[in-house]
């Protein structure tokens, strides 16, 4: 490139204001080239001509699509929880540990004082009992209500809900189950704390606003027991016990702002028709010893089922005492079958899996001290033997003479008379059982132990008490049976527990077999046998229950060669049969009672027809309610 070319380019570059203009190039030398004659050479000598045009640029770039951050709308779902009742129970900081605290159940507050911080937290984190929605909770709100509740343990950890003892793991599960169930039959074996689990579940429901009015119905003798347990486990809940004359009872039924009422079955049947409107409605009705309504025709059962209520709980250690049909009446109360329904066994089994919670001691209480059963076979004393043999012979002859007109009640009458003689001879007062009892009680009294004794007859209990007072005054016997006025019963139990000189409590099966906590007694005597081993178990479990610290020795007196031995044999066979079919007999008390056929079978009864004789027995299908009523 020569100088002139450089100048032109430079001029072009420096003229920035007129960057693009017409450029005229006047002298652009062409390189030397040989030109061949082509006929077009003149065109090559013409100067080229360039032109440029002005083009305007856009001041900014165009975008095809705009996007900016905008808050998206998020759909939400929400629910609020009922307010519930607030409890303000003061903490018992100074309470010493109770001597009767169940094994492994030390007073909770004391335990928490000992440990704190991470150590305690990590201990609690081991196992938390969460609430599950019940099967009949269909709406999302209902299901979330349960899922969002804190674990039972943390409810009870709060200052608001203090428990005297820490519940066992199975009890937490029971509380949680009850809390979630609108219909529940808690059928834990006797002694596992059905009362405590119910009370605690009621507390939680009150606190979560699920309950305002609750009614607990129990047998009359158990009223003091409920009062005591409520005071122990839920002292902050105002409780009214329905009692007194008609005017007072009406006032107690209708008084407002009382979250919890306790009434007995008899008063419920008597009073409830009189209560009207809102005051007759309850959020929860609890039937304790719910086998009381097993007869669906009875007025008590009818009234219990008629109470307007949102939740129905039944408590019993023996959901079936005699026949599976008894369970149907309880299911009617739970409102899971229609009235007068007749579910078959398969349907009952399904209902049981949905609405019954049953745990046995073997299953959950590995640490409960052993129960030692001793069958004491005793020979009757001579005078007793004579009286017995005479009575039996005369009785059987009399029955045989009755022929076809014989009924179960006639046989039953004889059985009772013979059983009474095995207890003691009414004429001479001789008694092999009393002799043995006196020997045992002397040892127990001397060692400071306590025993409870059960008999079928209150008269027999009075007789034992009188005789022991003469023969063994240091045994300090006390009597607790249906003949003792209700007001005097609770002090008797208290004295038995606290008086170091009271070593024996004489109780009737009817009054003392259910609901009482006598775990401080290490000995149980069954002076005579009940008809149903389930009732005997109930009696024994007054002592062999949570809180028992030592072995419980159970002594069953059986008079050798008498009706007692035969009854014992029948009951053993039935137990063995159920063990074979169902495993643990305590899992089911199905048909353990003796029926009419079995009671007839205790004697070899025959009727004479001309020269021939034939055995007398009721038809197999006959209703055995009379014998079971025993």
């Amino acid at each position, binding site marked *: 490139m020569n100088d002139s070319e450089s100048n032109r380019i430079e001029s072009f570059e420096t003229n920035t204001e007129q960057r693009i203009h017409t450029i005229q190039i006047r002298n652009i030398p062409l390189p030397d080239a040989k030109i061949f004659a082509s006929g077009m050479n003149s065109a090559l000598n013409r100067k080229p001509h360039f032109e440029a045009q002005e083009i305007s640029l856009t001041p900014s770039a165009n975008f095809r699509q705009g996007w900016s951050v905008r808050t998206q709308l998020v759909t939400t779902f929400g629910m609020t929880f009922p307010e519930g009742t607030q409890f303000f129970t003061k903490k018992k900081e100074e309470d010493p540990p109770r001597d009767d605290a169940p094994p492994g159940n030390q007073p909770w507050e004391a335990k928490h004082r000992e440990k704190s911080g991470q150590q305690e937290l990590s201990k609690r984190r081991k196992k938390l009992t969460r609430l599950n929605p019940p099967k009949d909770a269909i709406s999302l709100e209902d299901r979330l209500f349960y899922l969002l509740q804190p674990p039972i343990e943390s409810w009870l950890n*709060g200052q608001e809900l203090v428990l005297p003892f820490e519940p066992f793991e199975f009890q937490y599960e029971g509380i949680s189950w009850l809390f979630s169930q609108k219909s529940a039959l808690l059928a834990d074996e006797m002694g596992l704390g059905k009362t405590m689990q119910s009370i605690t579940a009621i507390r939680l429901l009150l606190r979560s606003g699920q309950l305002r009015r609750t009614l607990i119905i129990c047998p009359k003798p158990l009223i003091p027991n409920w009062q005591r347990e409520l005071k122990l486990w839920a002292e902050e809940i105002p409780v009214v016990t329905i009692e007194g004359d008609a005017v007072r009872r009406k006032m107690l039924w209708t008084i407002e702002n009382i979250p919890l009422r306790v009434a007995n079955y008899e008063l419920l049947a008597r009073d409830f028709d009189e209560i009207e409107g809102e005051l007759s409605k309850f959020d929860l009705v609890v039937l304790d010893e719910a086998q009381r309504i097993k007869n669906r025709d009875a007025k008590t059962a009818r009234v219990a089922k008629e109470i307007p209520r949102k939740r129905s709980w039944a408590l019993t250690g023996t959901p079936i005492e005699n026949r599976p049909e008894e369970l149907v009446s309880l299911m009617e109360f739970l409102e899971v079958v229609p009235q007068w329904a007749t579910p078959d066994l398969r349907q009952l089994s399904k209902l049981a899996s949905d609405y019954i919670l049953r745990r046995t001691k073997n299953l959950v209480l590995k640490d409960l001290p052993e129960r030692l059963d001793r069958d004491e076979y005793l020979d009757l004393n001579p005078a007793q033997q004579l009286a017995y043999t005479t009575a039996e012979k005369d009785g059987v002859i009399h029955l045989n003479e009755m022929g076809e007109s014989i009924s179960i009640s006639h046989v039953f009458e004889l059985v009772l008379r013979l059983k009474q003689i095995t207890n003691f001879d009414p004429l001479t007062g001789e008694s092999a059982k009393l002799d043995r009892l006196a020997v045992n009680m002397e040892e127990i009294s001397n060692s400071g132990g306590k025993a409870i004794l059960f008999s079928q007859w209150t008269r027999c209990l009075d007789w034992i008490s009188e005789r022991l007072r003469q023969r063994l005054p240091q045994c300090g016997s006390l009597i607790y049976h249906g003949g003792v006025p209700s007001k005097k019963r609770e002090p008797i139990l208290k004295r038995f527990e606290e008086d170091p000189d009271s070593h024996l409590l004489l109780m009737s099966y009817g009054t003392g077999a259910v609901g009482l906590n006598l775990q401080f007694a290490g000995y149980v005597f069954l002076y005579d046998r009940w008809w149903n081993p389930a009732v005997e178990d109930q009696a024994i479990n007054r002592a062999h229950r949570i809180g028992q610290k030592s072995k419980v020795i159970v002594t069953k007196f059986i008079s050798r060669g008498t009706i007692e031995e035969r009854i014992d044999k029948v009951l053993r066979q039935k137990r063995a049969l159920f063990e074979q079919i169902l495993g643990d007999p305590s899992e089911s008390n199905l048909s353990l009672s003796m029926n009419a056929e079995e009671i007839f079978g205790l004697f070899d009864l025959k009727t004479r027809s001309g020269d021939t004789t034939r055995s007398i027995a009721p038809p197999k299908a006959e209703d055995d309610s009379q014998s079971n009523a025993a």
Partner: protein
Amino acid sequence: MTDETQATPLSIGFFTTIELAEKEIVGGLLVTDRYGKPLEFQCTSPVSANKTQAILFGPTLKSYLIAELIGQSLFQKVSVKPNLLVTDQEIALEVRQFVRIPVLTVEEVAKTQGAITTQTTSTWRGRTLRYHSEHRSDANRFEEISQKLPEHADLCEPFERVREALREANRFTQTSQNSFSGS
């Protein structure tokens, strides 16, 4: 930004999220009293980012979805305004930018990685607490609040409830949808 002036006697909000299939996220906020008793619960329907959001938010997408979108919405929605918001997801700590109450994350000390001596980290009853770096005074405010908490309060436990409730709500929604489409 939501004001906390209407806060009632001590209540605590527990906020967490769970991820469902197809990268959908649902969040739940449980407000309890100081004993852990539930007072109110709010949860969202499943939230997911579209492709544009995913590209543009990049690594901050999850924080945006959890803290700003879900957390803020839930906090605005609850009628019982908590005095303290607790979360078990560190990413959710960003919700602090949208509320005027102290926010902290909680986890078991045993699971905590790294030092816990920084100004935004502390321990309390066997738990590691973390605060937002721009709101260090939250630690002091929590200290005041913690005086009112019962002896056995556990700040981790309620998250199990919230997660179970979120799963239940999701199951419920799916069942309802299936029933609807089936009919």
